[in-house]
């Protein structure tokens, strides 16, 4: 009888230890945040940070425009096979697609040289006195993640020094490594306004 009781106690103790270990490991898993690089909100946020940094460069005394470092940092966010799609401009009708590092480098370099004092900001929405930036995120069936945001863009034209405001939206697709595979930018040109000092 004593053996049966001691065996039962031993089994219960063993089961308790196993259960405790299992619950601890589950708790650790739950506490451990997802890899930051794969959170679409943070990836989108980083894109805006590096976009706004595209004006953070200097001209040498010899007149060289040193845009490469900020453009390189912007390009780090994109996969090798990424698409960057923007609105029409004075050089092209219809939407413009830049593909791969060299294509996107051209866009980023032109952008860096054309605009200064960049202020692209993800819009805040407020309901019930609770302001927040809304990131519309999803998981596509092919893997990775996708996100969209509304934003307000403010910049100064480098040449004529006019300060411009325009609302817009951006749609992102990321691969499993958190690199951008596609960005589509929409700028509401009908709502463009010059900011008067």
């Amino acid at each position, binding site marked *: 009888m004593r053996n049966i009781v001691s065996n039962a106690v031993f089994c219960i103790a063993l089961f308790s230890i196993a259960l405790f270990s299992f619950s601890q490991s589950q708790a650790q898993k739950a506490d451990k945040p997802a890899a930051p690089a794969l959170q679409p909100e943070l990836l989108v946020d980083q894109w805006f940070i590096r976009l706004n940094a595209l004006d953070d460069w200097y001209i040498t005394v010899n*007149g060289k425009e040193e845009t490469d470092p900020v453009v390189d940092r912007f390009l780090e966010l994109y996969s090798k096979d990424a698409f960057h799609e923007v609105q029409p401009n004075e050089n092209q009708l219809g939407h413009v697609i830049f593909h791969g590092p060299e294509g996107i480098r051209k866009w980023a370099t032109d952008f860096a040289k054309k605009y200064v004092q960049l202020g692209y900001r993800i819009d805040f929405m407020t309901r019930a006195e609770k302001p927040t930036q809304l990131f519309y995120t999803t998981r596509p069936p092919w893997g990775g993640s996708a996100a969209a945001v509304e934003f307000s863009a403010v910049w100064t034209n*480098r040449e*004529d020094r006019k300060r411009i405001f325009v609302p817009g939206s951006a749609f992102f697709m990321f691969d499993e490594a958190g690199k951008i595979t596609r960005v589509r930018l929409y700028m509401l040109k009908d709502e463009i306004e010059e900011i008067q000092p």
Partner: protein
Amino acid sequence: MKEVAPTYANLKKNLDSSAFAVAAEDAAKLEGLFKETETFWTPFKTKDALDFAKSVQLAARNVSAAAKEMNGQKAQAAYNAIGKSCKGCHDSHRETMPDKSFKIKP
């Protein structure tokens, strides 16, 4: 650009001491230096920088003309206009680095 500050300081000193002939030379030198500044900014078509460079050239020309007329008051007024353009351009296109050197912003 490094010659601008000492020339500008000399101009002030010479105007204050009514040394108009030398002041006129300083003003002419400043005009030349800001012609170079205008040339620097021309390929970038940066309107405010070009406008500031042109404004300084005009003000320097006015200082020079007033100094030649020995009109101290008029020369001082034109001199002050130079300073305003300097500040405007530096606010927009000059950034001080941690080592106190300067870099040119686009």
